[in-house]
C-alpha cells in the first residue's frame, strides 16, 4: 500500500488508475473478497455487483467528502457506516425494481456491500481528507478496480464452468463444463490462480531487472 496522502491531492490520471492496478482492492489489498468470490459464478452477476459497489463507493465518498469538515472525529466511523448503509439500502431496492431474477441471484450480497471494507476504507482513508472531486475520481478508480477483479473471476468461472460468457455459448455445444468452477472451491481456485499468475509475472520482471542490472555492472 502506498503512503496515504495527507495533503489534499490534485486530481491526476493516477488518482484514478491507482485503484485499478497498483492498489487494486482485490488483487493487491485482498479486501472485500467475500462478494468477489460469492457472486462471480457468472459474468452477469459480476457486472451487477461491480456496478452496485461502485455506485455505493462513489456516492458515499462524495457525501463523506462533503461532510468532512463537520463530522467530529469520535463519531466518524459511525457516521460513515450510516451513510454507506443508506446507499446500500437504496441500491438494494433499485435492483429489486430492475430485476427480481438478478436480485435473487446476488442474494444477500447486495446488502453485504455494507460490510465491504473497501468502501469504509476509502471513506476513512481518502474521502474524509480530500476534496469532493478527487474523492469521486479515486472512488471511481477503486470501483473500476473492484469491477475488473470481479470480471476477471466471473468470466473465467463462467467460461470454464458453463462454457458461456454472459450466457452466450463460446465453446462448441459439446463442451464439457467444469462444474467445479461455479462451485465454491472453484472461486478459491480461480482467485488463487490469478494471484499466482500475478506473482509469477512480478517475480519474472524482478529477475529480468536484476539480470539486466547485473549485465551492466
Amino acid at each position, binding site marked *: 500500500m502506498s503512503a496515504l496522502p495527507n495533503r489534499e491531492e490534485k486530481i491526476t490520471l493516477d488518482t484514478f488508475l491507482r485503484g485499478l492496478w497498483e492498489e487494486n482492492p482485490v488483487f493487491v489489498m*485482498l*479486501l*472485500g*473478497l*467475500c*462478494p468477489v*468470490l*460469492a457472486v462471480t459464478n457468472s459474468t452477469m452477476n459480476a457486472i451487477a455487483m461491480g456496478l452496485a459497489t461502485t455506485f455505493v463507493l462513489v456516492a458515499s465518498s462524495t457525501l463523506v467528502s462533503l461532510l468532512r469538515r463537520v463530522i467530529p472525529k469520535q463519531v466518524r466511523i*459511525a457516521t460513515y*457506516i*450510516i451513510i454507506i*448503509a*443508506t446507499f*446500500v*439500502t437504496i441500491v*438494494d*431496492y433499485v435492483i429489486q425494481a430492475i430485476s427480481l431474477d438478478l436480485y435473487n441471484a446476488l442474494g*444477500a450480497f447486495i*446488502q*453485504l456491500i*455494507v*460490510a*465491504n*471494507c473497501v468502501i*469504509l476504507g476509502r471513506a476513512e482513508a481518502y474521502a474524509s481528507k480530500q476534496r469532493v472531486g478527487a474523492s469521486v475520481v479515486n472512488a471511481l478508480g477503486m470501483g473500476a478496480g473492484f469491477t475488473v477483479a470481479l470480471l476477471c473471476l466471473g468470466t473465467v468461472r463462467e467460461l470454464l464452468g458453463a462454457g458461456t460468457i454472459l450466457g452466450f455459448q463460446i465453446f462448441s455445444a459439446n463442451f464439457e463444463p467444469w462444474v*467445479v468452477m461455479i*462451485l*465454491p*472451491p*472453484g*472461486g*478459491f*481456485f480461480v*482467485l*488463487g*490462480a490469478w*494471484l*499466482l499468475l500475478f*506473482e*509469477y509475472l512480478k*517475480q519474472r520482471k524482478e529477475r529480468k531487472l536484476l539480470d539486466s542490472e547485473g549485465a551492466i555492472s
Partner: protein
Amino acid sequence: MDPNSLTFIFLNAALINNFVLALFLGLCPFLGVSAKRETAWNMGLATMFVMLVSSVSAYAINWMLTELEIEFLRLICYIAVIASAVQLVEMTVKKFSPALFRALGIFLPLITTNCAILGLALFQTFREYDFLQSLAFSLGAGAGFTLALMLMAGLREKLELARVPSVSRGAAMSLMLAGLLSLAFMGFAGLGGSHA
C-alpha cells in the same frame, strides 16, 4: 432429518453450508487471522460470541421493525444496533472478566461490521427463523467458522516449515488451501437430509 430442527440448522450452518468455505462469508478475517493457531482460536471464539450477540439483537430489531412496519430501515438498524450491542458486551466483559477480554478484546471491534456477522443476521431474517432457530444458526455458523479457521491455521503453520516455491508463498497459497478445504467439505453435502 427435519430441515427446521435445531440440530439440522446447526449442522447445516457448521458443515454443509459452512460460512467461509461454502458461502464465502468472513473471508477477510479468515485469511487475515489464520496464520497462527492461537490467534485463530481466539478469533473463532470472539466471532462465535459476536454472532450470538448479533443474532439475538437482529431477532429483536426485526421483530420491532416488523411491528412498526418500517422494514426498509432494517439494514441501517442492524448494522448500528449490532455494533453498539457488541460494544456494550465488550465493556461488560472488560469489567467482569479481564482475562476473557484480553483473549477476545482486540478482535471484537474488527469483527463487528464484517460480512459474516451481518450475513448471519440477514440470513436468519430471510429464512424466517424463530428465536431458538436463530440461536442454533448462530452457534452453528460460529462453530463452523472456528473450525474452518483452525483447520486453516493448522495447515498454514505446517506449511511454514515447508519448502514452498516462492511464487505460491502468501495469499495465493492461502486461497488454494481454502479451495482444498472447501473441496473436502463438499463431502458433507446433503448430510442429515433423508434420502430413503
